[in-house]
């Protein structure tokens, strides 16, 4: 209070010349306005207080109500949240159930199809085993074996007829004719013809000797009849070989062109030297294959000898076909005899591959 008093005193004493002059009317007017405003403010404040007094209990009640509503809302939200959780769980459960049902259905279908397939596989496996058994028995190997045996019997029978047609025998001694084979009366023809054996124990085909030595030393002293006999014998051998090969269904490496006593043997793939040699000597011969004569009359002895060699190769081929071995490169009648003997033996039928 003292500073205020000091300030007011200073104002009064120090500034006498700055005094404001106010007209009373103006002062009164402003004072009236101030008074009315102050009164209005007072009234407004009073009214405001009254309204406030009215509002406070309402606000209180409203606050309580809102509190309750909020609580209920919270509870409802919690409930809603739980409901959502439950719904999600329910949806998941339903989806899982659907998935389980679907999987179960698929698995059931798969199991069913697997059972059917397994059953079918079992049946077909059994059928396959049965077929295998039948293949090993009536329907297969047994049938094949029987058929092959019949075939071999037929081949054997036909070969026996060939041996009847061209009997191969051993002739012993010049004076006494003793057949070591089972074919009787074959040598009478030879005797009638006046044939004389050159060597003891030599082989004949249809009573004819095959003297290969004459193929190497041709001279004026060689007997013409002997030449004819050998040519005929070779012709007979060629015919027999041709027949046997056809019945065994063996294509001969060196085919034969039959001409009875003037037969030829063909080499379809001769060596180059022979080809050039033959081409130079015989222009008419086809270069692709060469024919070699199985007779000596009017022929080159070398080519005739080679022809006999090739005929023996054919015999060797047939022997090998029936699992027999050749007796040598220069034993034509012996090999033919071995061939006939082997085919006519019982082993030919029993020893099926």
């Amino acid at each position, binding site marked *: *209070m003292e500073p205020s008093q000091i300030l*007011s005193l200073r104002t*009064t004493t120090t500034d006498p010349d700055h*005094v*404001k*002059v*106010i*007209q*009373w*009317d103006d002062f009164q007017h*402003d*004072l*009236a*306005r*101030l*008074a*009315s*405003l*102050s009164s209005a403010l007072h009234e*407004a404040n009073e009214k405001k207080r009254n*309204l*406030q007094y009215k*509002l406070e209990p*309402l*606000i209180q*009640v*409203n606050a309580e109500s809102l509190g309750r509503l909020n609580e209920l809302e919270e*509870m409802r939200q919690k*409930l809603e949240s739980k409901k959502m*959780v*439950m719904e999600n769980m329910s949806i998941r*459960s339903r989806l*899982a159930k659907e998935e389980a049902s679907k999987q179960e259905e698929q*698995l059931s279908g*798969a*199991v069913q199809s*697997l059972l059917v397939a*397994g059953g079918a596989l079992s049946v077909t*496996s059994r059928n*396959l085993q049965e077929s*295998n058994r039948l*293949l090993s028995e009536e329907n*297969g190997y047994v049938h*094949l074996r029987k*058929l*092959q045996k*019949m*075939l071999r019997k037929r081949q054997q029978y*036909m070969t*026996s007829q*060939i041996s009847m*047609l061209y009997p191969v025998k051993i002739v012993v001694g010049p004076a006494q004719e003793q057949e070591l084979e089972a074919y009787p*009366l074959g040598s009478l*023809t030879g005797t009638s013809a006046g044939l004389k054996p050159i060597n003891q124990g030599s082989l004949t085909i*249809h009573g*004819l000797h095959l003297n290969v030595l004459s193929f190497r030393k041709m001279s004026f002293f060689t007997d013409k009849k002997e030449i004819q006999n050998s040519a*005929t014998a070779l012709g007979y051998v060629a015919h027999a070989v041709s*027949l046997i090969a056809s019945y065994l269904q063996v294509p001969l490496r060196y085919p034969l062109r039959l001409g*009875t*006593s003037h037969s030829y043997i063909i080499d379809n793939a001769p060596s180059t030297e022979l080809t050039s040699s033959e081409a130079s000597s015989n222009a008419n011969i086809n270069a692709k294959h060469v024919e070699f004569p199985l007779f000596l009359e009017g022929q080159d002895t070398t080519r005739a000898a080679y022809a006999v060699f090739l005929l023996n190769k054919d015999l060797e081929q047939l022997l090998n076909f029936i699992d027999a071995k050749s007796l040598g490169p220069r034993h034509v009648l012996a090999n033919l005899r071995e061939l006939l003997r082997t085919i006519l033996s019982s082993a030919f039928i029993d020893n099926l591959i």
Partner: protein
Amino acid sequence: MKKGENKGRTRSFPVDPNVPRWVCQNCRNPLCIVGADSYADKFFNDPSRSGMQGSSIHGASSVLSTTKMDNSYVVLPKQRPLAQGNAPRPRGDAAAQPGKAMEESFVVVYKSESGIDGNGAHLLGTGADSGGHLPPHNSGFNSTITVLTRAFEIATTQTQVEQPLCLDCMRILSDKLDKEVEDVNRDIEAYEACLKRLEGEARDLLSEADFLKEKLKIEEEERRLEAVIEETERQNAEVNAELRELELKSSRFNELEERYWHEFNNFQFQLISHQEERDAILAKIEVSQAHLELLKRTNVLNDAFPISHDGEFGTINNFRLGRLPKIPVEWDEINAAWGQACLLLHTMCQYFRPKFQYRIKIIPMGSYPRITDTNNSTYELFGPVNLFWSTRYDKAMTLFLACLKDFADFAKSKDQENNIPPEKCFKLPYKIENDKVENYSITQSFNKQENWTKSLKYTLCNLKWALYWFVGNTNFQPLSAMVSSHAEVPAVGPLYTKRGVDAKSESRN
């Protein structure tokens, strides 16, 4: 502008030492009020003064109405948030704040009053001193002071502000009050709106009883929901267990399926192997069967000595027999043909010995055949021979015919022995008589080549028939099998007949 006018008025009036001086209670500036003498008297005596005050109050009312309009505009934005649920609380806060502001303004007023009171006492002291010094104006001065003092007190009471105040300060204060009135009016409008809303909402308020009821309902629902959740969880657990079980089953199924496919592949391999093996065996069987059929249809003698014809020529094993003017067949071929014919006929005659009397003997020698007659004379049946030296060749051919006729007669007698009907007994298709075959001579001397060739052709045909008879009646086995051969003859009779017919047709063609 008011301030400017006030300043002008202040400067225009001269300072009168006789007028009492006052201090503004707000800005502490000295001030004096002039022209109040006459009004002082009127003020106390004239009732119209109070009427003027009434008109002033009326003006204040008009100002208040203006303030109300302003407040209504200002309050509207605040009412919009009321739509939200949270509005009441901010509203309460807003209501509280203006109240606090008003209280603060009141506090300010009280302090000013206390200050003014001190100053008033001081001023009164100064007035007294001034009055004592001036005896001639004492009564008028004192009256003025008294009146003004009284007026100031009344004004202080009415305005709640310590008086006197200069005009500037009073106007500033009036403006402030005007604003505060507007603010309070605005608050009043807000309060009224809030009051209306709350009174309107009173019906919707939730009572304690309703609250409890609702709460119980919610709690009950919550319990029910808990139960449902438990149920759902249980179902979920069941389904999960089921899924796990299914997964286990599925894995086991996969194992079984894999094993099945292994077995299937194995089976397929076995099936293919079996099929290949079966096909191989079937192929072998087929080949063997075909081969067997072929061999069964084949006869060795027929195969070794096929007899046919080539135009005018008869052929045996593809060797032509005979010669024509336009077709000179080589001697090698003719010799080969005769060789084959002789070997065949010899083989057949030889087979039936000794039953068959082999009178005329054939000596086959390949391309050099010979024939021996009953007188044991031998004739060559091969060439080359010339027309003038063909006597022996002609003889040989005649002997061949004789031998063939003998064999045919033997065959016929054999059929008769087997009780075959006479019309079906064997008979040559072309009659043989001495050196003629069906009236064609087989000799070459003094004979046309055409006739000779035809005769040879007929001879081969006869030989073919003889061969067919031979094949049909024998197995061409060693003679030790003759007994079985005889036994089989009746069985092959029809076959023989059929073959004969076929052979004849073929020969004729």
